């Protein structure tokens, strides 16, 4: 099989732009997703079942349906409703954020529940009320435990953002598919895309491992 490097070089600038957009979308997704996810996670651990219900539904929906469906719904349904027109980048940020928030809410809940019950009891026995105990004792510790799974979610977002190519958001995979269209070739565009993704996810993983190590020694 002949592998044409020259067409990859032709497309290099577009892959570069796509890479920047992929990174941007993933960063936006992880940041906004964390904020929203914390809020939803806190909502989900409310003891009152009725108050917690909408949050539980949110998490169930976004974790229980394919991201592809979510992206199509957001792109063609939600964004035009608010913006009056579709916009691949806005839809990307929204879909990734909403999806990530569902997972991050669970990460947050797990972080809290992995804490020894004794921490809450010690805090309560010192006279703190539930909210004080959460705020000063539980949440700060849960946060630290959340860092590794949050990092993992970041990696997932980088990969998941490739689905935005379906709604023509010009990230890495979009250019890969354009290249396939232009040259009617398979291996060059998709392997190139695969290696860019691999580079991004591996770099991130290495950074995260170092961060984790540093946190552990602290």
């Amino acid at each position, binding site marked *: 099989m002949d592998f044409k490097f020259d067409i990859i070089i032709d497309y290099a600038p577009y892959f570069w732009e796509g890479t920047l957009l992929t990174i941007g979308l993933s960063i936006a997704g992880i940041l906004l997703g964390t904020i929203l996810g914390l809020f939803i996670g806190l909502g989900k651990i409310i003891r009152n079942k009725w108050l917690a219900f909408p949050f539980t539904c949110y998490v169930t929906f976004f974790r229980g349906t394919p991201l592809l469906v979510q992206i199509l719904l957001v792109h063609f349904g939600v964004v035009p409703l608010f913006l009056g027109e579709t916009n691949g980048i806005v839809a990307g940020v929204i879909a990734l954020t909403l999806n990530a928030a569902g997972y991050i809410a669970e990460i947050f809940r797990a972080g809290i529940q992995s804490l*020894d019950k004794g921490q809450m*009891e*010690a805090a309560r*026995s*010192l006279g703190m009320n539930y909210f004080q105990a959460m705020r000063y*004792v539980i949440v700060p510790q849960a946060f630290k435990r959340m860092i590794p799974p949050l990092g993992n979610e970041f990696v997932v977002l980088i990969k998941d953002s490739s689905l935005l190519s379906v709604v023509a958001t010009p990230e890495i995979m979009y250019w890969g598919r354009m290249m396939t269209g232009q040259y009617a070739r398979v291996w060059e565009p998709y392997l190139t895309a695969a290696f860019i993704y691999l580079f991004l996810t591996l770099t991130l993983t290495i950074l995260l491992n170092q961060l984790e190590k540093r946190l552990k020694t602290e």
Partner: protein
Amino acid sequence: MIRVDNIKKSFGKNEVLKGISVHIQPQEVVVVIGPSGSGKSTFLRCINLLETINDGHVYIEGVDITDKKTDINQIRTDVGMVFQQFNLFPHKTVMENIMLSPVKVKKIAKEMAYEKGIELLKKVGLVEKADAYPDSLSGGQKQRVAIARALAMEPKIMLFDEPTSALDPEMVGEVLEVMKQLAKEGMTMVVVTHEMGFAREVGDRVLFMDDGLIVEENKPKDLFENPQHTRTKAFLSKVL
């Protein structure tokens, strides 16, 4: 000081406390012993409402803490508790552990809380560890910090749940020493422990619990040397 009036507690179908009544005087040191699973921890936890009580009442200085109208957080500031597993806050330094509740709950000025903290750390012999994190302390040191942290709320009563049983044998002594000192200063204390030496030396009264009931109670010397009940005898023969 504390009046426990026929309290009952079940977990599901498992009745763990089957009607416990005790009267604890100010400055009294009560030691609770008994086999594993007999309900000692549950009893202690009922006194500061870490468990909801199914039936019966607990009065602390005349206030019924089982009454729904009572402010539990207020009550808990009067009842300090020390756990087997220390439960220090690992993300805060020793001093921050001690100051947290006085500052956030009692709204005491930071400087005052800090001074108080230093005083307490002196008492438990750990001033030099004020800025250390709990993970860098030995078990005995952790437990002494936990005691100082509980004392920082100026409780009227201190509850201890097997404070030395997670410790290496060498470290047991240093913790017991602090507790003895506390007893001497007149703190009202309820202590669940396997340390019979401590019970004998410091305890005013020993309760022997088995199967959710107080089977026997007496002065330590009398109970250890002259147990009345067969279950008490069986238990003591094993642990003494």
